């Protein structure tokens, strides 16, 4: 391509008016260039200024949002800052609720002139609209900002009359979201046009992001707080929250006549269900029980106006507590307890089985004697243990007597532990005689005594119950078995040394049900026999029918096992309790012991008939009989006449310490 040269006047210097014209044109061009440069620079300066001011505003909102944990507080500040920044008259905060169906003003607003805007502020501060209604409702519907350029022309705006009255011209509203969820709306009104929408959008969207973060933090904190105060599995308040509620309920007590009740609920048999079906089954059961309890409490509160306020909490594996607050009448708690027992009755489906979990409920009521709520909790606990001791499905309300008893029992338990540790027990021996002419001494019943450091020598009646309830009976029983056999062995040794081949006495030892049902009981007996060298037929074990009631099969197995070695077995206290004949049929006993109560009332023909029936029964089943508690020659005579072979009692021989008791046999044999 070829270019043609365009002629320029550059080579020839212009002169005169030409030069002036040219210079003037040049000057004008320069001037325009300067103005343009200035305009560009001014535009830049202006934008820089505006962005600095906007950033400063956002920085203030962000700083405040970071410092504050309250959305209301940050919203209040942000509305004010934005209005002042934009020169707008009114800003209003609206929270979204009901799963995004309702937008309700939260009474957080800013007005540049509250007096002048009063009617409009009043119409706005408590506005509550549905999706699509009014300005916030439109944001709720569309999830994007909305603008109104001329309020007077928008007849759908519910607050139009008040806005026009307040000389408001324009409005805008923006969503505040967390992720996809619309959580709040902010709306602004101005008497001037909102012209620079891009700048407004930028500023408010960023402010809204900060506000959203505050709500997010508020929620996270609420969740953390909820998790810290609630049981994850059932969603119920946990021990921490219960403690807090108990304390504040107790504090409120001082101001009125209302009372509070604490109900401690322990599920019976929960551990067995957990062991048998696994933890998932136990968990499912707990969730099911929780639902039943909640429904029962709700129903109870609706039907009992005096029921007060109830907090159901889960405080341990299978332990629940209900705090009944503001109750007028203490009996409310017992009524609720009855209802709770009722709702537990229908079985729960676990795997392919149906299981039923009963509950033991302890109740304690507030009263002037309590200094703090913890004491009430402890007493309710104690009442629950009392309820549990009486079997599943019971309720016990704490009383002073119960408290004293429990405290005494706890003290006794402590002393029993010390007694075991310090070997404070000793054995007395009561001789058992053949009820024949010569009253031959056949053996001894070993009877425990406690050489208490301060109370002196105690009979078993003073401590055996406590030992059984605390489980210490197992340790004590083992000691009795071993000690009785050891003592008998040394007696045997002495007698054999003196008179080789003589007839050896037996020792009869009481075995508590808990001890008897220990898995290792039979082995323990065998070990004692081997270690002490007592001939097995010189050991008699006395059990009551209580063991059979607990587990008849196992009782039979154990009895059979120890009898196979030659150990004799006695059924103690026969005639009292159930005295089921099926025990006699199924359980291998050698001896029946007639309870002392029949012997004591032997003058009564009824008692005599019973004794006679027992003797007949024993005769037919080939069992020997020992009558207990023979306290008079007359009682002994009647028993002999009725054909009772053996007997024991104060009339024949009181329980004596080892040395005196065993001296007796030497005297007898010598005689």
């Amino acid at each position, binding site marked *: 391509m070829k270019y043609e040269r365009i002629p320029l006047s550059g080579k020839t210097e212009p002169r005169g008016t030409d030069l002036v014209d040219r210079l003037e044109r040049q000057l004008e061009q320069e001037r325009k260039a300067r103005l343009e440069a*200035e305009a560009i620079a001014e535009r830049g*300066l202006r934008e820089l*200024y505006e962005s600095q001011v906007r950033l400063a505003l956002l920085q203030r909102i962000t700083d405040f949002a970071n410092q504050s944990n309250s959305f209301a507080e940050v919203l209040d500040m942000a509305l004010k800052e934005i209005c002042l920044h934009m*020169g707008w008259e009114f800003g209003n905060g609206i929270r979204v609720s009901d799963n995004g169906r309702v937008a309700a003003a939260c009474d957080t607003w800013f007005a540049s002139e509250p007096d002048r805007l009063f009617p409009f502020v009043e119409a706005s501060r408590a506005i509550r609209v549905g999706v699509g209604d009014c300005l916030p409702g439109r944001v709720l519907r569309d999830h994007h900002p909305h603008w109104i350029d001329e309020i007077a022309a928008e007849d759908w705006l519910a607050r139009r009359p008040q806005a026009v009255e307040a000389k408001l011209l324009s409005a805008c509203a923006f969503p505040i979201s967390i992720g996809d969820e619309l959580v709040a709306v902010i709306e602004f009104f101005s008497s*001037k046009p909102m*012209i620079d929408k891009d700048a407004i959008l930028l500023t408010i969207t960023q402010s809204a992001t900060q506000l959203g973060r505050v709500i997010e933090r508020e929620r996270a904190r609420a969740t953390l707080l909820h998790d810290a105060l609630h049981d994850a599995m059932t969603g119920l308040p946990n021990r921490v929250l219960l403690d807090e509620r108990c304390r504040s309920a107790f504090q409120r007590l001082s101001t009125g006549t209302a009372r509070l009740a604490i109900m401690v609920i322990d599920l019976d048999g929960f551990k067995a269900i957990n062991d048998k079906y696994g933890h998932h089954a136990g968990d499912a059961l707990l969730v099911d029980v929780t639902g039943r309890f909640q429904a029962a409490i709700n129903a109870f509160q609706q039907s009992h106006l005096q029921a007060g306020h109830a907090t159901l909490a889960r405080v341990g594996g299978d332990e629940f507590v209900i705090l009944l607050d503001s109750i007028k009448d203490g009996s409310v708690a017992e009524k609720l307890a009855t209802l709770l027992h009722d709702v537990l009755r229908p079985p729960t489906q676990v795997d392919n089985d149906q299981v039923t979990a009963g509950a033991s409920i302890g109740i304690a009521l507030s009263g002037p004697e309590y200094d703090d709520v913890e004491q009430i909790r402890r007493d309710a606990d104690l009442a629950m243990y009392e309820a549990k001791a009486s079997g599943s499905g019971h309720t016990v309300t704490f009383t002073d007597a119960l408290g004293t008893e429990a405290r005494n029992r706890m003290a006794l338990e402590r002393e029993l532990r010390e007694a075991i540790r310090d070997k404070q027990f000793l054995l007395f021996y009561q001789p058992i005689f053949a009820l024949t002419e010569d009253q031959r001494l056949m053996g001894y019943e070993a009877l425990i005594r406690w050489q208490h450091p301060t109370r002196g020598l105690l009979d078993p009646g003073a401590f055996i119950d406590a030992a059984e309830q605390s489980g210490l009976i197992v340790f004590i029983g083992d000691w009795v078995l071993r000690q009785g056999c050891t003592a008998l062995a040394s007696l045997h040794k002495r007698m054999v040394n003196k008179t080789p081949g003589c007839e050896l006495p037996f020792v009869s030892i009481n075995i508590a049900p808990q001890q008897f049902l220990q898995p290792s009981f039979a082995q323990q007996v065998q070990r004692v026999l081997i270690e002490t060298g007592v001939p097995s037929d010189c050991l008699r074990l006395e059990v009551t029918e209580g063991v059979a009631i607990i587990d008849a099969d196992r009782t039979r197995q154990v009895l059979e096992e120890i009898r196979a070695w030659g150990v004799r077995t006695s059924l103690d206290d026969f005639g009292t309790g159930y005295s089921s004949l099926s025990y006699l049929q199924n359980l291998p006993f050698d001896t029946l012991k007639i309870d002392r109560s029949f012997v004591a009332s032997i003058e009564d023909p009824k008692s005599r008939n019973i004794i006679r029936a027992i003797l007949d029964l024993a005769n037919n089943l080939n069992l020997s009989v020992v009558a207990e508690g023979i306290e008079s020659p007359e009682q002994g005579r009647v028993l002999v006449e009725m054909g009772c072979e053996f007997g024991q009692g104060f009339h024949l021989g009181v329980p004596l310490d080892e040395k005196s008791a065993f001296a007796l046999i030497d005297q007898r044999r010598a005689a």
Partner: protein
Amino acid sequence: MKGVIFNLLEEAIVAEHGVAAWVDIMDLAGARGTYSSLGSYPDEELYAIVDHAAAGLALPVPDVLRWFGQGAIPRLAERYPTLFANHRGSRSFITSVNDVIHLEVRKLYAGAACPHFHFYDLADGRLAMAYQSRRQLCHLAHGFVLGTAAFFGDAIDVEHLACTSKGDALCRLALDWQ
């Protein structure tokens, strides 16, 4: 004083009296003659220009200031149309001068020392405009008011109620919209 004021004054003088008049005034006043709207220049330089313009045109200084203010408004509107866009009349423009016009000035020139005008209603219904004026610049304000009225198609009577040049503490103008 912001350079834009010098620019507007130059434009007014050149338009009315030609380039030579401006150049002469510059020479007589010993002024630099080159002003950018982005810059700030000593107030004394403006006063010197005004004084020499008054002498050259054989007019009193207040008249020159008033004439200049009046003629500056349409030129300002040409340069900064957004300043005028949001106003429908001269009253709203004049009363927003502190919050809008001077705010805009500060946006462009950080730290610009703009005067503050105090507006209040007089018992006779006129609007009072009071400010601490230096060197009779109240006449410049007077001119701006007249120019603004003309720009919006209004008419305003302006009366100087008080003036620092007469020993008053403040300059006070009474504005009466016709």
